[in-house]
């Protein structure tokens, strides 16, 4: 047991690859806890950011600047009455949220937070993620069907249609990124050979970007960028978020497939939704934005740049701490605000401490990859909020049209052109030889 625990520390494989089930379990727990915490944080950030987009304050009462609001919400949801409608199919009604959460979190085991920071590195990692996340729609259909009510039924119908159609475009965009892993040369932009075979492993995809000195979003510009754009649109539809939030369209279907759900079951759906957002954002970050790599790992190489970039995560946390201190100083001096002010000072201190710990050389080299990855995922999360504040909702037929008539042909075109672009030198050579 102890052997298993210490033996892995010197390994440079993922626990899955090293066959170390103990560390795999630790990783699973860490990811589960981390993502759950991230969901709570995201909940707060979304409400705050959305509020500021909409000239409101958002949660302000529970904790300083509403920081404890997610916890208060969680407690409220857990203590709420758990209603199962009389006409519902009880077993399926009970299973649906569990199923959704299960699939939502199972996808996360191949997410590479770092070269070794994943539970396991499957050779079909990306395929596995797509497969499991599309199983999630089953839970939504179960929820809609088991509720035995019209709004959930329509919500789940929309959801299944939407997910199935956008998965096609999404898959094609992903395939073009996977093809890029095999094109090591400059393709249409210069000489070089297409060597080796591509890979579906999440870690190998990032390694390929490292080896090719380019994030795939910039490779064969603008092909990578278009594929990335298609994925970035499709992933919003895939996670049922605005402006593609038809399955839970509030103004049409009340709450869509989870209309009949309340309390903890409802919160499980929310948890799964945010976990799903995290999962697709991490696919996007892995495939196109260089995964755990810091920006410019090759162009700005050298010990000085390494040092500078490795200080960024800690420094950012220190900035957050400074913001917390600043806001704590600005808190009203009223006696009733005393605890809140102290709480904010305390929070700032904790964040500052974590930031300082992250500046320690031994720590910062080990967590640099994780922090860069989380930052990239956070960028997508912010986009989600931004879209939600800006766009009206698509109608069902328009959604389908965008999926099938715009995204799918473009994705297919990009896929083909990527292949041609990557093989340009070979094709030219072949044409010469043929003549």
């Amino acid at each position, binding site marked *: 047991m102890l052997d298993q625990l210490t033996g892995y520390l010197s390994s440079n494989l993922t626990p899955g690859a090293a066959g170390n089930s103990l560390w795999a379990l630790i990783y699973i727990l860490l990811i589960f806890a981390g993502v759950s915490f991230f969901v709570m944080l995201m909940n707060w950030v979304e409400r705050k950011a959305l509020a500021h987009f*909409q000239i409101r304050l958002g949660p302000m009462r529970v904790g300083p600047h509403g920081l404890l609001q997610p916890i208060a919400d969680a407690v409220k949801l857990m203590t709420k009455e758990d209603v199962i409608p009389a006409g519902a199919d009880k077993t399926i009604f009970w299973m649906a949220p569990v199923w959704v959460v299960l699939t939502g979190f199972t996808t996360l085991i191949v997410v590479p937070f770092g070269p070794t920071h994943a539970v396991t590195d499957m050779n079909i990692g990306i395929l596995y993620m797509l497969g499991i996340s599309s199983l999630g729609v089953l839970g939504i259909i179960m929820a809609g069907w088991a509720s035995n009510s019209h709004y959930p039924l329509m919500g789940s119908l929309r959801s299944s249609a939407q997910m199935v159609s956008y998965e096609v475009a999404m898959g094609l965009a992903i395939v073009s990124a996977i093809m890029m892993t095999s094109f090591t040369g400059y393709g249409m932009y210069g000489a070089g050979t297409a060597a080796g075979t591509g890979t579906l492993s999440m870690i190998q995809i990032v390694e390929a970007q490292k080896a090719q000195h380019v994030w795939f979003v910039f490779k064969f510009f603008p092909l990578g960028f278009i594929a990335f754009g298609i994925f970035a649109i499709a992933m919003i539809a895939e996670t049922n978020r605005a402006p593609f939030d038809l399955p839970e369209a509030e103004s049409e279907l009340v709450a869509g497939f989870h209309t009949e759900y309340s309390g903890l079951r409802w919160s499980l759906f929310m948890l799964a939704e945010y976990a799903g957002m995290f999962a697709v954002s991490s696919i996007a970050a892995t495939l196109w934005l260089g995964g755990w790599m810091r920006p410019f790992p090759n162009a700005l190489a050298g010990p000085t740049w390494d040092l500078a970039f490795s200080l960024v995560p800690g420094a950012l946390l220190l900035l957050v701490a400074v913001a917390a201190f600043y806001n704590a100083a600005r808190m009203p001096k009223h006696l009733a605000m005393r605890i809140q002010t102290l709480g904010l000072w305390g929070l700032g201190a904790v964040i500052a401490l974590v930031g300082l710990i992250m500046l320690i050389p031994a720590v910062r080299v080990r967590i640099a990859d994780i922090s860069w990855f989380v930052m990239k995922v956070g960028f997508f999360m912010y986009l989600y909020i931004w879209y939600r504040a800006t766009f009206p*909702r698509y109608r069902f037929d*328009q959604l389908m049209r965008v999926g099938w008539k715009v995204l799918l042909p473009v994705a297919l075109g990009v896929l083909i052109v990527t292949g041609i672009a990557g093989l340009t030198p070979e094709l030219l050579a072949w044409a010469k030889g043929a003549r």
Partner: protein
Amino acid sequence: MVDNDRDFYGQEWKEDRGEKSSTYLDASELVLNMGPQHPSTHGVLRVILKLDGEKVLGTECVIGYLHRGVEKIGENRTYTMFAPYVDRMDYVAAVSNGLGYCTAVEKLINVEAPPRAQYIRVIMTELQRIASHQVWLGTHALDIGAMTPLFYTFRDREEILKIFEKYCGARLTTHAFRIGGCQYETYEGFEKEVKKVCAFMEPKFGEYEELLTTNRIWVERTKGVGKLNGDECKALGVTGPVLRASGVKWDLRKAQPYSGYDKFEFDIPVGENGDTYDRYMVRVKELHQSLRIIRQAVDNIPEGPILAKVPKVLKPPVGEIYHSIEAPKGELGYFIVSDGSLQPYRMRIRPPSFVNLQALDKMVRGLLVADVVAVIGTLDIVLGEVDR
């Protein structure tokens, strides 16, 4: 067992669209009960939708959940006592209701409000039109899924409500006018403040337009949705911006000027296609026209009394009168029958929302569920007025 040929009230379904006139539900049809508790039926409207998948085959509006018997109340109160009640009908445009009622009774007793009162009335009602359109715009956008405009419009509406509050002490159900003129003299700095609000509003309208007018999704969601041509509008009695968006240039402020509207210069914005987008554009343009009227009124506001000579006890001559004004939502008419007593013999109110709501079925047949919500929004109904 539910009788599928009939709706929940035992009435037969209206004729279906096209060849499919059978009234039984086959496996692909679904009756969806939308409301009265629904986030976007604007209160307590209940629409029973007959759907084929997402497609709407027919609708049945069930109203009356907010019925308070306003007309009957009017027959049991003196003319003066009834005035505050009308504010409760269209509660997002209370000032317009009050103007309609006051001018109707004035016509009945043959009194005209003094010029200063008329100007104050115009300023207040036009401010109210802006506020009403802002509520409409925010909720309509929310129905279509854009959350943010709602908060912008409500923020700006606040400035108008502040003026109301300062003028008459109430923000929503104002009872600002009185039969024969105005209840209150303007407060110190009224003109300046109104001008300030006008200057404040102009760029804000641009802000709403920035979010919506050229937004691809907004345009796709509204263009060609809920079409209604001019003849259909006339046949259904639809008035207001909905009528004007269909290309009919009919505005009671120009057609039958009341309260001195003939002294002001303004355009009547009209649309072409009569779809949801045109209705949106017409209303947005009306916002600017209202500002134009307010500016003229504030600049030329005359001095003088604010209340005409009206007897303390109103006892109108025997007779009947119909008087209508252009409320933000359309033609708001009052039909009053007087038997010479203190109370009207019959009080009939023609609310624009109620009449416009008739068009819902015609507009949404063949569209999708999401469009029903958009069309309810674009009709700009207020259930307090529909049910009275």
